[in-house]
């Protein structure tokens, strides 16, 4: 985000806003009442403490708000920062180029990778073009083509996930959304190149998984990942749209919780205030993490890379006998 753009505040940040207003008021009076200086200083300190306190006590629904923040950095924001000369590729070669799914050739530190990411679009116009980040089968098939490209040229794959899910549309069904996702899963499982997936914002259900079956799964600190949207969950299980917060809690969808469940390999710390407050910083932090995982994975043999991935998923689940 350009430094001049002010972060849009979220609901749970209201106490901070109130405090900031107080500080501003006092500062305006400083010239007439210099004695207030100590108070102002103290309030600034209070502000910092409050901010830290708020951010260390986020509820799941607050993480959701951060994950869905309108200024959340998207795939292109990361690709641009990893490699300002990255090369975007287009199309499924069959019928369409789905803008909700961006693909390209990106250099990440010492690694050349095939990069795939969802795109929600920034402006209203872009959002509409990108279908608010909901890919259609053509998007998943564009990704599939890139999986095969990566395999052919022995390039690692990086996927960045921030999507409400696959698009629930009529044409999407007619073009076999189910098969598009399922085939991606089987092909991702078959690859002998490393795959690293990062949930950067919303990890929405099968539509996220379709580019998320990986050797390593990372989540940004405030990202969420769930089998159904909390709204969908609330309306089905509670039959009430008021219960979104409860659904968020029940589903265990935050990075920390999913990490504890053993599915996510690493939670990537965001700048205080969220990734949207410091694009450059989160991109750098993520890049360091990616390089570390690629360092490990690229040391394995191609067969071992595939085996590593298969073993990872074979174990997931909780059953008794």
């Amino acid at each position, binding site marked *: 985000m350009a430094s001049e753009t002010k972060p849009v505040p979220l609901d749970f940040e209201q106490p901070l806003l109130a405090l900031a207003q107080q500080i501003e008021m006092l500062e305006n009076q400083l010239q007439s009442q210099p004695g207030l200086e100590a108070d102002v200083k103290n309030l600034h300190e209070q502000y910092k403490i409050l901010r830290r306190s708020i951010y260390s006590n986020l509820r799941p629904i607050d993480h959701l708000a951060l994950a869905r923040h309108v200024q959340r950095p998207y795939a292109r924001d990361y690709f641009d920062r990893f490699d300002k000369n990255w090369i975007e590729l287009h199309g499924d070669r069959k019928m369409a180029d789905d803008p909700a799914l961006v693909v390209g050739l990106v250099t990440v530190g010492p690694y050349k990778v095939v990069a795939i990411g969802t795109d929600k679009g920034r402006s209203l116009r872009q959002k509409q073009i990108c279908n608010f980040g909901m890919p259609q089968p053509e998007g998943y098939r564009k990704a599939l083509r890139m999986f095969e490209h990566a395999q052919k040229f022995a390039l690692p794959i990086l996927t960045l996930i921030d999507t409400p899910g*696959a*698009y*629930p*549309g*009529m044409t*999407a*069904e*007619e*073009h*076999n*959304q*189910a*098969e598009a*996702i*399922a*085939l991606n*899963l*089987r092909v991702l*499982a*078959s690859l002998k190149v490393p795959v690293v997936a990062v949930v950067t914002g919303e990890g929405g*259900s*099968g539509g996220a*998984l*379709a580019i*998320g*079956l990986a050797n390593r799964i990372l989540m940004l600190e405030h990202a969420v*990942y*769930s*089998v*159904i949207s909390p709204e969908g*969950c609330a309306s*089905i*299980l*509670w039959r009430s749209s008021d*219960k979104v917060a*409860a*659904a968020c809690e*029940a*589903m*265990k*969808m935050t990075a920390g919780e*999913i990490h504890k*469940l053993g*599915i996510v390999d690493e939670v990537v710390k965001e700048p205080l205030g969220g990734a949207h407050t410091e694009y450059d910083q989160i991109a750098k932090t993520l890049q360091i993490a990616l390089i570390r995982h690629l360092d490990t994975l690229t040391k394995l043999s191609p067969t071992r890379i595939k085996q590593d*991935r*298969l073993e990872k*998923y*074979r174990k*997931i*689940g*909780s*059953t*008794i*006998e």
Partner: protein
Amino acid sequence: MDLKEWFADRRKRQENLEIKQPLTTEEYCALWRQCFQCRELIYTRDLHSNLSVCPKCHYHFRIGAWERISQLTDEGSFKEIDASLSSTDPLKFFDTDSYSHRLEEASRKSGLRDAIITGAAQIKGKAVALGVMDFAHFGGSMGSVVGEKVARLIEYALHNKLPLIIVSSSGGARMQEGILSLMQMAKTSAALEGLHEAGILYISILSEPTYGGVTASFAFLGDIMIAEPGARIGFAGRRVIEQTIRQKLPNDFQTAEYLLKHGQVDMVIERRQLAETISRLVDFHQTIEFRPSAVKPKIEVVSIIEKNK
């Protein structure tokens, strides 16, 4: 007045009580079922002997896993595996009720531990690995147990070089297992990669209804895709799509026949033909190398064939 009302009326009016008590509504419902499609009343025993297909309009009723197994497999051939695998409540999930309690309720109603039965069987003499889902258990939803049982069945097929047959019926993922349930899509699809690489046949059969995470994973990865007539199959549900696109969908949207037209399934097969079709498909794919039978077929030479010089 339809038959149901007539029975109810008869009871109310206490007619002809001398010889026999009239049927209660419950007894009546156990004896008779009404076709969802043509509204015909069918004697339950007749319906079952007709494979739960309406004799009048061929509507295919939903059937349970055990009924499906008995219809498909040679008598006495089915050997269940992983029968004792059961759900835990990894998230301690609670909505208006606890997942643990819902699990108990589901099992009480369905008589099953979870939404799939897996095992080895013979279908018209052909040995197969067979999995059958049951929509009546927790909406056929896929949680850790379904995922694990499917993965184990795939491995069973792989190790024993058996064709894999899975009959799906599912509302989607089991929300109460959260992300773990989503990951079963990855787990089952990854397991199928092994079978695919080994060149072992997988026939996927889609029955009314199959949706969500099950379609977007193992159910749509068959070498051969078969759907039952009238079955509704899709990724997203009809209502969600209508809300999203703000228009009514065609009546036949997401039916088996619609999918056939849109190139998504190889065939729509009546239930009475299903076992025979599976058997023939298994037979056809059992040639692992080109192996012409020892005896050449008797064909009259009716015409001269020019040889390429």
